């Protein structure tokens, strides 16, 4: 056993001995603090298991047959408390693994979407390709970032504007509720930042002014947006997502959306260029 674990063994044995004398929450709290200290000292769960069973074996060797069951139950309660800190750590590893898998999936989706958006034939097709492009981007955005709703809007020139809405769901696309359109019309994108958490919404004066009571927007939880910007800096439009499927929108979500918005901006400019050229030729 490494020196750190040896020192821990003595502490564990002493604390367990005290717990057997006083079976109360103070002693269980001490067990929990021991587990926490084991995590901070970077002991493994195997080290903890070895320590625990060594202490239990020593304890059982000095108890009578009649006390063995009590000793084993006390050891079980004590061990459960010390392990709970490791449970927190283990759940953190699981979350990190899931996040990494999610990021790999996002990278793959972005690669495919990039290929599609940079395809010149998309830009050269009939008028209305920009609206189709926005629809595709909105659908992909909800899938990429696991959001319930997306709004994508862009100016098409000559004062015309395209706005598309999309909603995701386990059963496939579903209808977009009216509050999504209201949120975009009345509320727009947060000027102070592109992400609005549940906490931010609760404090946003414009949210309260727009929706009044919770009944008007019962399902609006959080939002993230990215602007569509031309190469010369002209604002073309935006892509906005509402309600992350789980939790709040993260920095990574925002970065992915910004990347998607940049690809979309380039595709829109390309489409506009070919449309202008086609119009010039036809004159």
């Amino acid at each position, binding site marked *: 056993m490494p020196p750190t674990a040896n020192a821990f063994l003595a502490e564990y044995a002493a604390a367990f001995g005290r717990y057997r004398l006083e079976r109360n*929450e103070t002693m269980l709290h001490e067990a929990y603090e021991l587990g*926490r200290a084991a995590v901070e000292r970077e002991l493994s769960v195997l080290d903890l298991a070895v320590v625990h069973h060594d202490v239990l074996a020593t304890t059982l060797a000095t108890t009578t047959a009649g006390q063995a069951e009590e000793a084993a139950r006390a050891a079980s309660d004590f061990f459960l408390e010390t392990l709970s800190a490791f449970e*927190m750590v283990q759940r953190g590893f699981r979350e990190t693994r899931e996040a990494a898998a999610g990021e790999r999936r996002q990278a793959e989706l972005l690669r495919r979407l990039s290929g599609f958006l940079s395809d010149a034939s998309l830009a050269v097709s009939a008028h209305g390709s920009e609206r189709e492009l926005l629809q595709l981007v909105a659908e992909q955005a909800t899938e990429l970032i696991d959001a319930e709703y997306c709004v994508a809007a862009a100016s098409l020139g000559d004062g015309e504007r395209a706005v598309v809405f999309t909603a995701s769901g386990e059963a496939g696309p579903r209808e977009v509720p009216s509050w999504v359109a209201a949120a975009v019309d009345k509320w727009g994108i947060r000027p102070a930042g592109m992400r609005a958490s549940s906490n931010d919404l609760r404090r946003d004066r414009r949210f309260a002014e727009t929706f009044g009571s919770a009944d008007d927007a019962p399902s609006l939880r959080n939002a993230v947006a990215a602007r569509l910007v031309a190469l010369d800096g002209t604002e073309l439009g935006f892509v906005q997502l509402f309600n992350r499927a789980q939790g709040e929108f993260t920095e990574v979500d925002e970065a992915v959306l910004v990347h998607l918005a940049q690809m979309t901006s380039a595709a829109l400019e390309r489409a506009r260029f070919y449309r202008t050229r086609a119009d010039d030729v036809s004159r």
Partner: protein
Amino acid sequence: MDDEIRITIERDHDLVPARAEGRALAERLGFTRTDATLIATAISEIARNIVVHVGRGAIVLRPVLEDERCGIVVIAEDEGRGIRDVEAALRDGYASNKGLGLGLPGTRRLMDEFDIDSEEGKGTTVRMTKWRLRDELERLRERRRPSG
């Protein structure tokens, strides 16, 4: 069962009654030993935050009974300086949690629902809930129990 339990938190020793009440309520609500331990752990971590970062606050425990599930709501409230960046605080490695997965991020992972409401200069309220599904037999017994 709609009693609320409030425990003032000012020093390390106050974590013990908060844990004890949380564990006792979890057991009354029929949570397993494992879940009762995790609830006590979550209370420890969140109350420790009050002691370390603020100095004074409270833990409030509330049972919630619905038809298909029951739960324990744990609220940790203080009137400290608030959390400037809640998102960062929920990330491993922020402040004193050294990236080990303990503290606020660790606590969040133990519970089914977790929410922080914090404003600089106005304190913090953490609200978290753990749920247990109630099976058909339990719901039937509940309906047959005389009311009052």
